[in-house]
């Protein structure tokens, strides 16, 4: 099966095929035999790729697979052929920076703007607190505040929409 993999913005085409109990993985001229040992289904695997041993923790979030290897964290977006073509046609949604989301899970300590306010790039919009650290979230685009979805004291999760700018 062919996968399109994006690592740090670079695009690679990788082929994964079953072979004698393991898998053959290929990228261009490069080809390896990978034996996959399951340590904890969905979380932990022991790979032996050719002779190389790789102990791996895995995180999956949508199309993104993050590899945790020897203390390093390596995220990659992995798409099937169909998803890759669909994305190429569609392009990236141009939502831009007008939707301001919570950049971490935490408590909204203060909202510093109101609907109708004119903001510039860098204007502090709201203050999030998590683990006793305050984070000022700033506008990344200039415009007028269209709506605010939360009030001070609310708990938000990473990615929740907090402010919309027009």
């Amino acid at each position: 099966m062919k996968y399109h993999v994006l690592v740090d913005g670079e695009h690679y085409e990788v082929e994964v095929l079953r072979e004698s109990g393991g898998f053959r993985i290929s990228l261009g001229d490069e080809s390896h035999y990978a034996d996959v040992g399951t340590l904890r289904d969905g979380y932990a695997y022991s790979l032996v790729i050719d002779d190389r041993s790789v102990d791996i923790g895995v995180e999956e979030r949508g199309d993104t697979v993050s590899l945790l290897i020897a203390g390093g964290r390596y995220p990659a977006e992995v798409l099937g052929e169909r998803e890759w073509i669909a994305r190429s046609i569609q392009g990236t949604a141009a939502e831009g920076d007008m939707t301001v989301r919570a950049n971490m899970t935490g408590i909204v300590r203060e909202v510093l703007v109101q609907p109708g306010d004119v903001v510039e790039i860098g204007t502090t919009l709201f203050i999030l607190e998590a683990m006793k650290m305050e984070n000022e979230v700033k506008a990344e685009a200039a415009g007028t505040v269209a709506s605010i979805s939360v009030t001070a004291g609310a708990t938000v999760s990473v990615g929740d929409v907090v402010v919309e700018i027009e």
Partner: protein
Amino acid sequence: MTDTARTITKVLVANRGEIALRVMRTCQEMGFKTVAVYSDADRNALHVRAAYEAVRLGPAPVGESYLRGDLVIEAAKRTGADAIHPGFGFLSENAEFVRQVEAAGITFIGPSADSIEAMGDKIAARRRMIAADVPVVPGTADPVTDDDNLRSEAERIGYPVMIKASAGGGGKGIRIVRNAGELLAAAARARSEAAAAFGNDAVYLEKFLSEPRHIEVQIFGDTHGNVVHLGERECSIQRRHQKVIEERPSPLVDDAMRAAMGAAAVKAAQAIGYVNAGTLEFMVDANRDFYMLEMNTRLQVEHPITEMTTGIDLVRWQLLVAQGRPLPLSQDQIRFEGHSIEARLYAEDADHGFLPATGTVGRLELPGGPGVRCDTGLFEGMEVTPYYDPMLAKIIVHAPTRDEAIDRMRRALSEVTITGVTTNLPLLRRTLVHPAFRSGRYDTGTIAAHPELTGTPLSENRRRNVALIAALMAHVLRRRRGFADRPSAASASSAWVDAFRPGDAR
């Protein structure tokens, strides 16, 4: 028996996470029963499971649980605990709490309320230290409340200056101001942060030393008038005023400097009749001149590197002193062996602005083997919430030399795997191999000055490796859910497919 001789049989630990567990371990070794307190978020936490008894305090937010001194004292009474160990943070430097504990006839394992107050108000402490002839950083002698004063004092000290919370600690409520234009806004924010964190919005100004080193000295006093120091800890590897890596000995400190800093620290402790474990924090400038910054009137996070190099269990000493026993060793009996380093594992994305990270721990592998200690409250299935400190684990190593200790720490870090929560592990790994760290010539600005520490692009070869393995793992993960479109995937039984449901985070 003097009135300082007290019997301890059961210790309530008014804390959570790794430090609560660490304190309980020594209590257990000394034959004391232990009592844990917990918030609803910590019902299954390691410190609850390690304790002999466990009492619920309240909901997750600290104001409703771990900061509720009244509930803690109630729990101690209910379980018959005759001593309370505060750990660090939370109620550990709250003089009022200490008074309530003592009033309830319970032994507080730490300094007296008076000592905490003497050092807790940073401004008053500065005054006392100046009187005791301990060198302090130039700054204001009083809290600065009005804007005119703020401006004129900042001019007098000379920019850059630091705005610090009078009741602060742990790097919270600190703002650096480089010019007059930033001053008032920064002061306002510092006051509001201080009010939220410490319930006290007083701030003061201090000279901002350019590229200082942050070196602290562990001291210990008993109720018989003995005070000793246990050497220094080098704590200059920091991110945003939070320590990240500490080591002992400091690569900067030689025997003469150690003796001078130790003597200053002992003098500072003696000036206030200090009893139990305390730490004098010093700023050291480019000329190797040192200035006392503040005293932390409690056990420090980084105490293990002192333990590893002296063989002393500091919590054991705390418990002995709290019972009125004399310090087990005199100054000249305290010896230092080898080199120790501590790396703090934080739940934060160091590569993206040090944003705090939350989540559920999926897979967890911790380091072990010779010369490695890991103090942590982590376990598989644990929820990392936004309510508490982001420190998840302390990895501590010991080896005969600094080079061997660094190599051991690199090895130990390579054994760590945590999924489900983003950590600063990549920063730790990069820092250890960075020439600035390896050479020992670093300061509190080093992490900020080297952006490669908080994000290094992968080599083409590494990217290709990641692409190959990521595709393989995606294939394996998706196939087991039956999402693959190849016929071979049909071998996945329907039960197998059913067993995996969206949201199955564990």
